[in-house]
């Protein structure tokens, strides 16, 4: 059970039904005018357990980045894409593809660090500012309309991976 209100899934289905035409026409301003935006009055808080130079950190982007051999994100789906990719490997990424559909991918396609600053974090580890990085980092496509699916399925699967890799903290980079 996610922290969304109990009636959120029903409100979402009503919105999807009533906005389908706008979504299909990619008229985002009309489609999202009535979207049931999740709203909160407070935030959870987990203090850092150790100083940053002893912390194992994970990197997460919602920029829709995938590696060769991985499926590309479904940028043309009106409801978005609820899947995610794991990004691993010790060195700089040789090749990557951005699929998102809701921002201009030109900059991130030229330098992934603009939305996925992995090389920057590696410099900080090398210089002793950050303890270490997880073996796996995560990428998903921020455009997805079903927040209940995100919170009930995608986010728990991502958390399981980070916890298995010993992550104590995460840097999240949206687009």
């Amino acid at each position, binding site marked *: 059970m*996610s*922290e969304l209100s109990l009636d959120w899934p029903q409100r979402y289905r009503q919105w999807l039904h009533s906005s389908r035409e706008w979504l299909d026409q990619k008229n985002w301003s009309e489609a999202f005018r009535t979207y049931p*935006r*999740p*709203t*909160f*009055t*407070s*935030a*959870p*808080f*987990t*203090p*850092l*357990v150790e*100083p*940053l130079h002893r912390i194992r950190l*994970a990197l*997460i982007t*919602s*920029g829709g980045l995938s590696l060769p051999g991985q499926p590309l994100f479904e940028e043309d789906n009106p409801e978005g894409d609820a899947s995610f990719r794991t990004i691993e490997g010790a060195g700089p990424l040789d090749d990557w593809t951005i699929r998102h559909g809701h*921002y*201009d*991918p*030109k*900059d*991130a396609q*030229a*330098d992934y*660090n*603009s*939305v*996925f*600053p992995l*090389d*920057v974090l590696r*410099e*900080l580890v090398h210089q002793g*500012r*950050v303890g270490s990085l997880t073996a796996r980092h995560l990428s998903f496509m*921020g455009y997805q309309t079903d*927040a209940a699916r*995100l*919170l009930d399925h*995608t*986010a*728990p699967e*991502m*958390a399981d991976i*980070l*916890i298995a890799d010993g*992550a*104590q*903290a*995460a*840097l*999240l*980079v*949206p*687009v």
Partner: protein
Amino acid sequence: MGLVARYLESRGISTVSLSNLAAASERVKPPRALLVPGPRGQTAGKPHDRAEQRRRVEAALDLLEHAQTGGVLKTLNPAP
């Protein structure tokens, strides 16, 4: 992204988010967020501008290290 940050935090992972949408962050309230200038597609800095990328990441990590409470939204200092 704010929803993911909230979820990870509830699972015991401390999070800090860059944010380029103040209104969204104020509504969703991620645990710690650093508001950075746009445009979309270069949240962590312009391509190949390693100095600015590093400045943004380091400012976010400072917030991760020093925030004392959940729901803090800080604005990145203007570029020097």
